[in-house]
């Protein structure tokens, strides 16, 4: 994966990242990196594309708490300073180049940042975009009166200074390499509109946003659809379609039905269910493809539960899971195996980790050797503790429930008891999950934020909330070497150096097994065959991350 050449540019990801590290050249190349050179696109926007989504977009201020589907609207209406492309490369958007140590945009100590901005960008209402808007946005996020979404990274920003309308500088409280990636998801909002609001939480802007993006706000039929219209003055590529519509269809089966019947042009998030993949692939006039998702499905263990403290137990459990059968039979062969939290499409993915195999005999041998011996009820025990634990997931998620039952059986064969205690989503992911009250969970987790390899919030000892930490290390995993590596990783700006760090992290975590990886998912994307310029980008949370490039052939 890492060596695959990007057919549209001729550069491999390795090359491009080297160039990114080497300096400003990437900025010059960037316009070509987004999509193919113009070919077949209409000269004036025309036509309409309807994207079906199974959750309703309702939050249109991109800085406020929102879910994935809201990102699709944000990416279309707004711009961020940078964009992350399908190859995981960060390219300029509102900025003219990506700051790096080499081009002086980031100081040697990683503390001082300087960003140059485009001078040809207008807000949808015609007002010019300037560095003041960037300053306003970064300040609004950490304004205690504003109900902001995530503040990680932004909370480190100090002394924002507008040097000129096209230049802005700031200082970081501490070096934080992932911030560059975070800025690809930080959409810039207009100071001249939101700045004038007494209460930005309840501004009219939040219901009819004004951005700089390829599409302007059109109208919203609550509970049904959001309609965006082309911004012909867009500074970047496109848009080629006149109307972009996100149609809310509350049920995945119903959405697939409407994709089949042609009512929607693209089956967007949460996409086509795996069980419909084979049928969808054979639909005439539809393009259906598997796209790697960022999330990794696993049996996620609570490391503080006495059953899981011994590494031998975690290893044995892993050997007793028939992952191939789960993938092939329950998930219709759609997902792919993985041994790490890092998505396979990431540049930081380590592809030579030890591969698990389904080997119940070996599992039994490991447990025998560790002193876990079968008791009178057939369940293994050691020092009076039975090897028994509960596994939980969201009620009603049928594939997961079936996988649980399957794992329950194969674990029983090696003398381990797994009980199933599922809860509705609202219970499951509340205190039960956040405060590590579970024993084990079957869950798909996206470990990366904006495709940056930093996983401090997931694996650092200081991120264990149940022990007073800050983050989401719900497994309560703690390893001093990992802690040190993660800290080093956030201070390191050179991609090659970071790669070595995160490869080591993956090795250690594969060895420690705080979670038993089942697979990394593939999502089933479907669209009408006539749509061109569509590029999946798993480094973003949205299938519409670059709707500006879509057109009807």
């Amino acid at each position, binding site marked *: 994966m890492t060596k695959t050449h990007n057919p549209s540019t001729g550069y491999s990801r390795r090359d491009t990242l080297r160039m990114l590290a080497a300096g400003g050249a990437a900025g010059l190349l960037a316009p070509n990196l987004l999509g193919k050179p113009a070919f077949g696109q209409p000269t004036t926007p025309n036509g*309409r594309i*309807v994207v079906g989504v199974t959750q*309703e977009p*309702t*939050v249109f*201020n991109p800085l*406020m*708490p929102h*879910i994935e589907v809201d990102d699709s609207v944000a990416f279309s209406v707004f711009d961020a300073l940078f964009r992350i492309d399908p190859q995981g490369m960060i390219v300029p958007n509102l900025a003219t180049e990506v700051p790096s140590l080499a081009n002086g945009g980031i100081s040697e100590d990683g503390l001082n940042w300087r960003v140059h901005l485009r001078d040809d960008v207008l807000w949808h209402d015609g007002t010019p975009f300037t560095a003041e808007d960037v300053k306003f946005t970064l300040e609004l996020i950490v304004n205690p009166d504003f*109900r*902001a979404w*995530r*503040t*990680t990274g932004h909370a480190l920003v100090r002394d924002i200074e507008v040097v000129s309308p096209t230049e802005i500088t700031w200082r970081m409280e501490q070096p934080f390499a992932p911030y560059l990636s*975070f800025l690809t998801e930080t959409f810039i909002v207009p100071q001249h509109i939101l700045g004038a609001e007494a209460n930005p*939480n*309840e501004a009219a802007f*939040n*219901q009819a946003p004004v951005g700089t993006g390829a599409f302007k706000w059109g109208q919203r*039929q*609550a*509970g*049904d*659809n959001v*309609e965006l219209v082309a911004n012909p003055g867009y500074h970047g590529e496109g848009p080629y379609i006149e*109307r972009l*519509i996100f*149609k*809310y*269809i*509350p*049920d995945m089966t*119903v959405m697939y*039905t*409407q994709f*089949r*019947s042609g*009512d929607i042009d693209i089956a967007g998030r949460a996409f086509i269910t795996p069980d419909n993949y084979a049928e969808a692939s054979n639909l005439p006039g539809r393009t259906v493809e598997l796209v790697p998702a*960022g999330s990794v499905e696993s049996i996620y263990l609570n490391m503080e539960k006495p059953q899981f403290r011994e590494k031998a137990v975690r290893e044995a459990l892993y050997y007793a899971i028939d992952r191939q059968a789960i993938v092939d039979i329950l998930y219709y062969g759609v997902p792919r195996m993985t041994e790490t939290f890092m998505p396979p499409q990431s540049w930081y993915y380590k592809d030579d980790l030890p591969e698990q195999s389904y080997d119940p005999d070996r599992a039994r041998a490991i447990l025998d050797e560790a002193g876990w011996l079968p008791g009178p009820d057939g369940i293994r025990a050691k020092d009076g503790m039975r090897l028994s634990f509960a596994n939980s997931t969201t009620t009603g998620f049928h594939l997961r429930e079936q996988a649980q039952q399957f794992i329950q059986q194969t674990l029983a064969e090696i003398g381990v008891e797994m009980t199933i205690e599922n809860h*509705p*989503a*609202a*219970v*499951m*992911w*509340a205190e*039960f*999950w*956040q405060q590590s009250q579970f024993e084990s969970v079957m869950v798909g*987790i*996206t*470990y*990366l*934020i*904006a495709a940056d390899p930093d996983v401090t*919030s997931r694996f650092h000892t200081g991120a264990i*909330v149940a022990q007073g930490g*800050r*983050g*989401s290390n719900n497994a309560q995993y703690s390893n001093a070497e990992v802690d040190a590596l993660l800290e080093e990783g956030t201070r390191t700006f050179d991609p090659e150096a970071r790669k070595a760090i995160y490869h080591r992290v993956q090795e250690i975590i594969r060895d420690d097994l705080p979670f038993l990886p089942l697979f990394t998912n593939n999502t089933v994307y479907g669209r009408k065959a006539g749509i061109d310029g569509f590029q999946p980008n798993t480094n973003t949370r949205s299938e519409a991350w670059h709707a500006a490039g879509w057109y009807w052939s």
Partner: protein
Amino acid sequence: MIAFLMGRLAQSLILLVVVSIIGFIVLNLIPGGPMSQYALDPGMTQDDMARIAEQLGLNRPLWVQYLDWATRMVQGDWGTSFRDGSPVTAVIARHVPATLILMGSSTVIAVGIGTWIGVRGATHRYSSFDYAATIGAMIALSIPTFWFGLIGIYVFSLQLGWLPAGNMYTIGDGSLLNYLHHLIMPSIVLALVHIAIWSRFMRTATLDAISQEFVKTARAKGVSERRVIMKHVVGNALLPMITLAGVQLPSLLTGALVTETVFTWPGMGRLFLDSLGYSDYPVVMGLLMFSAVLTIAANLVADIVVALVDPRIRLA
């Protein structure tokens, strides 16, 4: 009449307060809450979650939250949706028309067809029509609405291609015909159960009326059978149905909940389910109060109408 109204009004107010307290408690008893949707969000920290919860006022004691909500409610401020950021009244108002259209059309269908089946079943008692109607009603009552919906979509949309598989209109086509085309299937599916209920009650009511002395008198006077049925029997049989209609109104709303999901109809039923899913407390409470008021009002109106049309009843 005035005294009656005042009494009912006082009753209703107490009822509303009780409903709101129970609703508020139950809603907050459900573990989870509005923050859990962000729990799996990469990069969302516990600090951020705690901050957002505080900004939403969720970390205050429950009774403080309730009193705050109730005080505002009395002043006409229904609060602000957590999910959407706009006022609850605006959120509900955006979803009311879709539900009203669906309820209205299915009520017309249910009352029209239900009355006809009921009357005909009663006048042709124990005929094959009567048996067929009885069995049909049993089937309609025992099979869930979503099943009818899915079968309808399979047959009429996917196989025959006659009717749209859902939605209120085709995007880009706002014509009346397009709306009506989309309305056919959901309103019939929603009406099915109500046709069944309405026809059973109507049959019984008609049978009651048919055996009355005034019917015999009318027949003895030589009034035509058609006129006897239309004027004397149906007219009287419809009286208890007004009360039924008042009681049935809320169940139309719940029926719409399911129908709106199957047919992706952007009404209040969908809004309720979605808001519950997101733990959008202000909207859920708003909808609860809205439907409580609607239920009370419908029953009140039904009582008044019965009194107005039936000179034998006086509201004291």
